[in-house]
């Protein structure tokens, strides 16, 4: 137990060291590198070192604690980034949930009928080669047409839908692999017990899929965040991190460090999303045991 804690501590220490090394590399290169970067054969393979291109690490960090603008109404930058990240997190979570339902649903259909697997799987793979940024406005436009009773489609739902489009893919693939993972011996055992497809699903296939499903869900969460941010930028949804990302990018000429705030925010947001799914793994730890070969 203590050995394990020591290992976790060491992992964290090295991780922090990695970030420090990155910062040192950044500053070191900025200090030593040519102002116009390193150009080899017409391509600038190492970046420019101007303050505009590479703000100092301390400027980027310090900017987080200054106010967003001079206006009295504005608070510190980190607060603006954090609250925007929370909005995006909420949308991404909805997108992730939809992705989970759709992904697992698809995997069940493909599991049940092999012809469905043959028919759908290539398209599911193909779906991820579609540049969805090109679709965001279309989704928003179609969404705005959806009115069912008192339910009216909101713009954030378009963003969540796009997030789910990125999230469902690893989940569908991972779930399918996991559901197909039980050994023949286990499947045949269930057969000898004379129980049907659904009961086998519940008692065998779902529990057995956990080790595959967890990384897929984590990947799905990271994808949902990425999708949400892209869709926010594309549809111009207010309030989220995508919005301040373009907003501050627009102010980067006069305030270069400011543009990095939402970038750090997006990273933390992605890590938080992926990390919270990893917590699921703790709850389901008994389902991650593997049988040692006899």
């Amino acid at each position, binding site marked *: 137990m203590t050995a394990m804690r020591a290992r976790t501590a060491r992992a964290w220490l090295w991780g922090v060291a990695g970030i420090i090394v990155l910062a040192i590399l950044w500053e070191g290169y900025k200090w030593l590198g040519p102002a116009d970067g390193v150009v080899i054969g017409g391509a600038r393979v190492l970046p420019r070192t101007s303050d505009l291109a590479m703000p100092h690490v301390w400027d980027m960090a310090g900017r987080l604690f200054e106010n967003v603008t001079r206006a009295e109404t504005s608070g510190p930058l980190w607060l603006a980034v954090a609250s925007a990240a929370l909005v995006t997190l909420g949308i991404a979570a909805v997108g992730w949930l939809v992705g989970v339902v759709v992904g697992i649903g698809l995997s069940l259909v493909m599991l049940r009928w092999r012809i469905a697997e043959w028919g759908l799987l290539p398209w599911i793979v193909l779906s991820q080669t579609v540049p969805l940024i090109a679709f965001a406005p279309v989704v928003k436009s179609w969404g705005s047409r959806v009115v069912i009773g008192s339910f009216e489609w909101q713009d954030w739902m378009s963003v969540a839908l796009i997030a789910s489009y990125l999230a469902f893919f690893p989940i569908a693939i991972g779930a399918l692999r996991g559901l197909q993972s039980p050994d023949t011996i286990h499947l045949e055992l269930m057969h000898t017990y004379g129980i049907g497809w659904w009961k086998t699903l519940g008692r065998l296939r779902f529990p057995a899929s956990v080790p595959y499903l967890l990384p897929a869900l984590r990947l799905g969460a990271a994808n949902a965040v990425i999708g949400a941010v892209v869709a*926010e930028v594309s549809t*111009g949804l207010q309030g989220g991190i995508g919005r301040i990302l*373009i907003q501050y990018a627009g102010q980067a000429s006069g305030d270069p460090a400011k543009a990095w705030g939402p970038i750090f925010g997006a990273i933390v947001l992605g890590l938080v999303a992926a990390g919270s799914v990893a917590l699921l793994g703790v709850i389901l730890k008994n389902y991650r045991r593997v049988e040692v070969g006899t």
Partner: protein
Amino acid sequence: DGTDDASGGGGDELTSVKLQLQWLPQGQFAGYFAAVDQGFFEEEGLDVEIIPSGGDIVPQDALANGDVDYAIAWVPKVLGSIEAGANLTNIAQIFQRSGTLQVSWADSGIDSVADFEGKKIGSWGFGNEWEIFAAMAAEGLDSSTVEIITQDFNMNAFLQGDIDAAQAMTYNEYAQLLEAVDPDTGELYTEDDFNVISYQDTVGAMLQDAIWADTERLESDEAYQETTVKFLKAVIKGWIFAADDPQAASDITIAAGSGWGPSHELWMVNETNKLIWPAPDGIGVIDEAAWNQTVEGALSAVNETGASPITEEPPASAWSNEWIQKALDELTADGVDVTGEGFAPIDVELVEGGN
């Protein structure tokens, strides 16, 4: 969406109206935000929701698809959409002048469009490039004679020399340059550091921010017609407010969600006012000559893939002064000055980063 609600409007009930902007909330749209904030729309019985757009939302398409009731968009872009099948009408030409500049370094020798040849010319794309091609066409240059570089959201590409002449709006990107620090001096850049070519001074100049409405509904939907006039009246009042008190208008847009700093915002409102006022025929009235110049420019502009925004004259329904005139008449009757005769821009001092 607004389609059904726009026909309400009787009694105390407000008619809901959706207005699609062409970018994030900012001083460029101060008049509309002011009209909301000051209750001008409400006075007209309207409940207006302003919908900002992001990178890829095409405002005129949101309108053509029926997502919104009115949209703000540049004329040459909408002409393309009309040719592609959208049925839209320009009901008010809010910006009388083009605010587009092409900025180069003072020592670059790029003083006119004719000097573009062989240079790296910046543009945002998204249909913002037609003025460049139209102006070049007038100088006998085609798009293959320059290298077009897509600009992103800031002026860094220009500041670092990736672009020889960058596209800039008087009210936004030009200010971004003046808010940036010159690494050589440690001070902000000044206007003397740059050469500025204004498209307003070229035959490439095209009409920009206009209010667009759905042509069919304008023709057949009486409630929409009524709403349109009311809407325009409130908008005019909003822009008059912005002209009278740019500082207040600037504060309003910031409160409405603009992310710019106060000095940049005030600059933007002030420069926007200059594009609108004075308006001798009344704010929003479409000048036929300017319209024709825009159409001609759009017909002559050819981009690097060989595409033009339009290949034939737009239909007559593409613009109409009928509604703005009604609005102007009603306001004039109430004693409102809609020409901005006494308009005087203020002086705005920009600070670093626009803060």
